[in-house]
């Protein structure tokens, strides 16, 4: 799927944080909310519909019966719904509120700071997870279109509430005042610029599958049974144990016939039996330890 839904781009960034410093990031978020003037830069950007930062501590991953992971990091999930391209967004972030960004990712491991921009972009892209399904209820309108539409709607409703008792001349004057006050907010919704030919082609290529499943008379949702043991365990074990000498001989004969030469494995010098490795001083580290 695509990170795009109409004019909105859905960004997801998952960054690791050392548990000892997670509380600092949490405090920084809370103090920025407690002092709302610190968010004026973010509000001033004017192209973010909704965004969120979610701190997921090591013990906060929902447990529903899956094996428990032995994690050494907390994680921060950042999700944003913004207008414009990825590059424009990161540029605007770094140019507009570099200090704020550095505070919001303060605890993230290896965060390179927002200036200079290239390492910052590399960091975001390296930790970004693409969106698999993205829905936007207002795909034709940007965030500013929506705010201006809300203002116009509010003004129109106020005029409509008083229209009954007003003469045509008064209404005409009200119309003129309304038009002057909202002349900057009469945008027209439309399609987003095509991000790439591939994105447009992907939409077209999904048509058959989408209609075949969810269209009229479609097959409906995929509800396929899962086979937990598609190959019997005994077969798997037998194949790895390599015990069937008869089969091995047959395979060797087939290979010899194909190659037209006898195997030279018997002619090869015999290797000495390897001596057993000395026991390790400490237990081997497992990847998820």
């Amino acid at each position, binding site marked *: 799927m695509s990170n795009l839904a109409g004019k909105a781009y859905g960004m997801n960034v998952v960054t690791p944080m050392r548990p000892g410093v997670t509380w600092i990031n949490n405090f920084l978020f809370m103090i920025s909310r*407690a002092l709302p003037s610190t968010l004026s830069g973010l509000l001033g950007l004017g192209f973010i519909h909704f965004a969120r930062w*979610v701190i997921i501590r090591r013990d906060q991953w929902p447990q*529903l019966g899956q094996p428990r992971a032995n994690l050494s990091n907390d994680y921060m999930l950042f999700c944003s719904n913004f207008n414009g391209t990825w590059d424009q967004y990161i540029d605007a972030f770094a140019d507009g509120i570099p200090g704020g960004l550095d505070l919001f990712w303060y605890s993230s491991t290896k965060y390179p700071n927002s200036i200079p921009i290239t390492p910052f972009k590399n960091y975001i892209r*390296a930790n970004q997870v693409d969106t698999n399904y993205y829905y936007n209820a207002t795909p034709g309108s940007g965030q500013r279109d929506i705010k201006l539409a809300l203002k116009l709607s509010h003004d129109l409703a106020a005029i409509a509430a008083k229209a009954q008792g007003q003469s045509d001349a008064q209404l005409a004057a009200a119309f003129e005042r309304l038009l002057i006050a909202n002349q900057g907010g009469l945008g027209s919704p439309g399609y987003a610029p095509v991000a790439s030919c591939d994105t447009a082609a992907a939409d077209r290529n999904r*048509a058959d599958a989408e209609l075949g499943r969810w269209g009229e008379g479609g097959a409906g949702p995929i509800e396929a049974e899962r086979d937990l043991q598609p190959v019997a365990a005994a077969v798997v074990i037998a194949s790895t144990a390599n015990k069937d000498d008869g089969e091995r001989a047959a395979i060797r004969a087939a290979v010899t016939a194909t190659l037209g030469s006898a195997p030279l494995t018997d002619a090869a010098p015999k290797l000495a039996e390897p001596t057993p490795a000395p026991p390790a001083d400490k237990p081997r580290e497992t990847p998820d330890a």
Partner: protein
Amino acid sequence: MPNIDVSTYFFTAAVPVCNEGIVEHRSLVGEKGIIKSSPIHVVREILETLPTALQSHATEEIGLNSPFSRNLRTHFTRFVILEQPYFNGRDHSNALVNAVANTDLLQPQPVDQITCPYIFWTIDFDLLDPSGAGEPRRYFEELWSVMAPELKSIFQYCYGFDKVTDGAGFATYMIDCQIETTMPFHDYWYVPPKLTPISTAGLALIPGVGVLMLLGSLVAAILGWTGWQWAAGFAGWSGWSWMPWAGLALLILGLVIDYYWVLWKGRQPYPASPGADLRNVLKGLYLQQAFTRFAMAQQRSDPTTWGAEFRKFLATTKPADLSGPTQPPGVIRSKLPGDAR
């Protein structure tokens, strides 16, 4: 509570997928054979083929709107599959400290592995009650009533989902998978919001007194040390030995109080933007387009007719009536009288 802000619920969940075994299903495209794949691959395919909003020429031609458009509270939602978190390399460390401590930089640091893929689900939906009472349970029950087949299809391989049979069960399941949103952000304020900051004077009060006492003690100590005992006594600090400890205690106490005060204040939701829920947004977009068309038409007409025409416009578009005429969710633009299609 940070899940709720500006009269919106910021729902975040991580749903674990049991990615064991294989799944067979019939292909709808290509050679129409049986496809064998891992469960998470099927989840990806389901998400790929779930109808999006009518947001491009191609999706408009398909003509199937997203199932989420059946709900009039959902602004944005997304599903994101996380197979494994990214590893950003070895932690930063100081070269001098490494040299002194003889740190072996070739010794690898542990790399996190999660034991199964997760589906991250985030939703931004309107609250019916600004206090958020009954949410998000109410929302999920609503959603189940309009798109249960799609939801079952997405979550069918998730741990514990086999126990979900109805809307109430689905809501309970999703609440079990919920992770609290730490920092929500929403900006549909068309008038600047009136947000009350925490009192900085209040924050500074107790630690400030503590710091002053510590400074006072320091000054008294210097005066005493320089032999100006009379000056220390004059200032009332002749018996000052308790003061640095009291100052230090007040400083620590004040910082602890400030920390929890900031956490509490930060968790308080910002006030709602008046009339900015999805139904108002859709109505606003409809009015924006209708009014633009109307204003353009009036440019060429006699100004003496504007009043009567505007009255007709208001009667037709009903600005205060959210139920209609309005724009449906998940489309590019409203269909207005006189449109070609």
